[in-house]
């Protein structure tokens, strides 16, 4: 009975791997690696493009609910075919290219952006044995792919020959460069602890259990702080609220893609969401144990369900934050990156190292490491209060 159960669980878990294997095995041996790769790539592109479509509906409905509105509910059941309508609309719209624009670069920019956004998915394990390619330097590859996005953004902003798009591109590039540093530093703490740059290895390290609790890095003080810092940097990296200055519509209208219309605009939109999904997926891989279950008794749920459940949860957090917060100003954004995020991530790096070397039982280690993070943060709060910054004011009244 028990073995049969595990058999079913195993099958459910590996169903996609087995399916792919079945398809590939019918082919001649020479073609097998190529077809296998193509199938994986198509699957990843299809799934995440679909997830992008789904996210747009979720976002609009979620934001609507937070604002006591209904959100889109006209196309299809509960409005879930809205992305199809949006897609058709953007395809049928006129594709405007400004006369002054640099036509070739203007055309290439969305292509580069979306292509670069998709590259990162190659190393993200979406389930047990489900990864397009297991690179030895996987995390490094992810960041390399991410740095290509900046080039696309710049190309879009510059080639449009519009003042607003230039401002937007300047903002976007500055922001993405600045936040790449804390993003990488926050992940280095994980790399250091896991001792590997391979995403598959990192997940495998976290998919172990002490008692019933998994070894997710987010369950450690440095992991938790690192996760928060990583998510803040990821929000900035994917230009999401409250760091959506590059496209801040009340200031510079739409930023670097203001001169794009129709499907090219949709590509930029897709690029933003794909970036958000990719960085969320990396956060899951690094801190939330990838496809692994949080408790050992939940391990029967297929690994890919865990991955996508975590992904959707993080996406909801993005939407939630967007529904609550206004955006920062450019100098504050930079200040946050260099004066808060950078020191905190470096500190977190030290804490991660200390976690490894502080002896003693779990509670002592926990306490020491948590204190190392909380005390500087508390001091920062106190410093701000003494400078009367970021404080509510009391007002006088005239009778």
């Amino acid at each position: 009975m028990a073995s049969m159960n595990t058999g079913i669980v195993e099958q459910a878990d590996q169903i996609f791997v087995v399916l792919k294997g079945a398809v590939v095995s019918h082919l001649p041996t020479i073609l097998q690696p190529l077809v296998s790769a193509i199938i994986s790539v198509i699957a990843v592109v299809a799934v995440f493009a679909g997830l992008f479509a789904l996210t747009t509906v979720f976002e609009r409905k979620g934001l609507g609910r937070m604002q006591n509105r209904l959100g889109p509910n006209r196309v299809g059941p509960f409005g879930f075919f809205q992305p199809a309508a949006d897609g058709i609309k953007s395809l049928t719209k006129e594709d405007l290219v400004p006369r002054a624009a640099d036509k070739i670069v203007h055309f290439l920019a969305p292509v580069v952006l979306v292509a670069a956004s998709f590259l990162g998915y190659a190393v993200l394990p979406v389930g047990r044995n489900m990864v397009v390619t297991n690179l030895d330097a996987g995390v490094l590859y992810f960041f390399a792919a991410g740095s290509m996005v900046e080039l696309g953004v710049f190309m879009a902003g510059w080639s449009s020959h519009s003042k607003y798009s230039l401002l937007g591109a300047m903002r976007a590039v500055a922001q993405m460069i600045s936040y790449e540093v804390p993003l990488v530093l926050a992940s280095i703490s994980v790399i250091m602890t896991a001792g590997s740059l391979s995403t598959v290895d990192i997940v495998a390290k976290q998919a172990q259990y002490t008692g019933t609790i998994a070894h997710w890095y987010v369950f450690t003080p440095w992991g938790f702080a690192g996760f928060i810092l990583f998510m803040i940097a990821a929000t900035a990296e994917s230009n999401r609220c409250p760091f959506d200055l590059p496209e801040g519509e009340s200031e510079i209208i739409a930023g670097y893609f203001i001169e794009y219309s129709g499907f090219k605009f949709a590509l930029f939109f897709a690029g933003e969401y794909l970036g958000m999904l990719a960085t969320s997926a990396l956060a899951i891989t690094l801190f939330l144990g990838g496809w692994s279950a949080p408790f050992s008794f939940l391990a029967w749920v297929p690994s890919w369900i865990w991955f996508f459940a975590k992904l959707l949860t993080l996406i909801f957090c993005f939407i939630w934050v967007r529904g609550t917060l206004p955006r920062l100003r450019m100098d504050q954004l930079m200040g946050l990156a260099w004066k808060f995020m950078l020191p905190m991530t470096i500190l977190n790096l030290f804490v991660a190292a200390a976690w490894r070397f502080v002896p003693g039982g779990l509670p002592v280690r926990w306490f020491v490491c948590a204190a190392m993070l909380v005390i500087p943060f508390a001091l920062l709060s106190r410093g701000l209060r003494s400078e009367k910054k970021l404080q509510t004011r009391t007002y006088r009244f005239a009778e």
Partner: protein
Amino acid sequence: MTILFLILAVLAIVGASAAMAFRSAVHAILALALAFVSLAILYLSLDAQFVGFTQIIVYVGAVAILAVFAIMMTRSDSAHHHTEVFSKSWLTGLVLAGGVFTVLAWAVLGDKTQHAAADAPAPVTTVTQIGEALMQRYAFPLEIMGLLLTAALIGAVVLAMPLLSNKSGAKSVTKGDAR
């Protein structure tokens, strides 16, 4: 492998030549980025993952973007600025290029291992090995590089300092900021 190499080599050379030939600085940088990417893929095809990805992060993600940023800040329309291809600095450039080529050629030819390595499979270098090499055998050069970069950073701050204080001084006299 050879086909891939040929494509990448052509791309790299075309990119590099285009970077020199384009009149528009932005186009030149984009062409340069193409050359960088082709080089990075070339590294990857040689199983040098770390170098390849670092090439992209550093050269595409940082160097090209930095140049691009400088262009955005100034935004001088160099497209209208016609200079002769054969100028006086051309000779200097040729001498410099020749010098660089000689040094590189000497280094490549002087490497005893190259003929032996051509047939044997490339040794798989893991990130761990690179890290260990950097931290043990090459620790001193690494530290010196760090010192150099720190010096550059301090230099940049020193250069920017008078500009910054000017800016804040100018700000305080503007009308709206009286308090």
